[in-house]
């Protein structure tokens, strides 16, 4: 089936169990799909945009209320929707960081943090992980001291992923926040892999900014995200334009500079809003999703030669495993090489594992039912059995 002649209908989620690492928690709810159907037109949020003509002030549909709900959900004071987490990193960097400043990120930090820092003409320095691939508060303190010694001034910002994209290990954000504040440095919490799937309390963590990704973890279309902050930083990061046109004398009053005015102006924010009641409920069930994740990882570990590269037991639904000692031994002699494994999975209705990968690879079980979890776990063991790996 094709759309407009050459765009294939995407049927991945309907026909397969999809364990792709970054797609799992961005799958839409039924309500979000309906919002896209009804609000897909370009500026659909703007039917009843009234003074002061800003997205977060619109009451019909209830976009203003959604912004308040978002800040309460994250226990912060102010929130804005953004076109992805990366635009939130960018907004904070452009608001807080000067040319030549240093920004600390994790050695497992996402590449978009690097780009946001570079965009502000600042310099990234990485906080190393410990032997367990965890970033600790102590490591942040050491790096602050090191940078301050070298440069004669402390870093301008710390950005730390709660769970990183690579291993989905949990890092000590609360410890890092405590340390950062001892040096009077603001800290940004990267919740791309937490906001929308597990409870996040910005005030309890002690952070100045909470960033989430709508399309990664809030059952929303791409791009979408959230930036929440404290009342102390809201005026800085959400500063309004002071510019006056020299010919026309035009001013644009309440438009926020770092947001570039309105952000998500169509189906994306409405879909995000439509998923939000489900998102708010589902974070309370995070523990069960982690249990399911461990069930699948345990099934993989029951196969001789397999290892869990991520911290174990798992605290997240995204995991990295090493199957060099099992599936890769088959790949070395199979005519399809590493593709034999993804072929076998696909024959069983499972997709999302990186095609051709049989050494280290990632998968995500978020959102799967127990029936689907058992099916995936059994499929791994069945494939291992077929090739004499059990």
């Amino acid at each position, binding site marked *: 089936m094709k759309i407009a002649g050459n765009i294939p209908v995407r049927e991945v*989620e309907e026909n397969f169990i999809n364990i792709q690492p970054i797609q799992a928690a961005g799958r839409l709810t*039924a309500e979000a799909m309906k919002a896209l159907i009804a609000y897909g037109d370009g500026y659909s949020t703007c*039917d009843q945009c009234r003074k002061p003509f800003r997205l977060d002030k619109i009451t019909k549909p209830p976009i203003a209320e959604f912004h308040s709900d978002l800040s309460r959900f994250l226990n912060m004071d102010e929130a804005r929707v953004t076109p992805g987490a990366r635009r939130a990193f960018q907004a904070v960097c452009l608001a807080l960081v000067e040319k030549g400043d240093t920004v600390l990120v994790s050695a497992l930090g996402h590449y978009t943090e690097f780009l946001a820092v570079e965009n502000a003409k600042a310099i990234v320095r990485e906080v190393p992980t410990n032997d367990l691939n965890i970033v600790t508060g102590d490591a942040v303190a050491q790096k602050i001291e090191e940078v301050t010694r070298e440069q004669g001034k402390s870093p301008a910002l710390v950005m730390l992923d709660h769970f990183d994209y690579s291993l989905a290990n949990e890092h000590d954000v609360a410890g890092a926040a405590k340390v950062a504040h001892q040096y009077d440095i603001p800290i940004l919490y990267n919740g791309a892999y937490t906001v929308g799937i597990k409870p996040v309390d910005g005030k309890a963590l002690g952070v100045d900014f909470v960033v989430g990704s709508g399309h990664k973890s809030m059952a929303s279309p791409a791009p979408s995200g959230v930036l929440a902050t404290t009342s102390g930083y809201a005026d800085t990061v959400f500063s309004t334009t002071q510019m006056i046109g020299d010919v026309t004398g035009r001013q644009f009053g309440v438009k926020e500079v770092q947001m570039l005015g309105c952000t998500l102006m169509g189906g994306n924010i409405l879909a995000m809003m439509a998923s939000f009641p489900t998102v708010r409920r589902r974070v309370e069930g995070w523990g069960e999703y982690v249990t399911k994740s461990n069930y699948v990882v345990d099934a993989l570990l029951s196969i001789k030669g397999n290892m869990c590269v991520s911290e174990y037991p798992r605290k997240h639904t995204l995991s990295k495993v090493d199957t060099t000692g099992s599936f890769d031994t088959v790949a070395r002699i199979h005519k399809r090489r590493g593709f034999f494994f993804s072929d076998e999975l696909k024959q069983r209705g499972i997709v999302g594992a990186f095609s051709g990968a049989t050494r280290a690879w990632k998968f995500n079980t978020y959102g799967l039912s127990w029936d689907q979890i058992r*099916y995936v776990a059994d499929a791994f063991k069945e494939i291992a059995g077929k090739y004499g790996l059990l």
Partner: protein
Amino acid sequence: MAANGSFLSIKINNIKLLDYWGLGMDNAVDNLFEALFALTDLRVLLRETAPLHKLSAEQQMQAREALARAKAALSKLEEELQE
């Protein structure tokens, strides 16, 4: 499957989709969205039961309800557009 139940009001959670101008709803449009939304509920059911699509008794009931809603809305839509 549906996050919070009623779709007949053509609301998605607390977002009133249509008629926020207060001019009254066109029945044809109302039924069009109702049919699309019912099929969307069915779509999500297919996702939740992939890849085998073996439905439990409760899921079978949900599927029947969604199909009935879609059929009823399409039937009304057909009548509306023939008037």
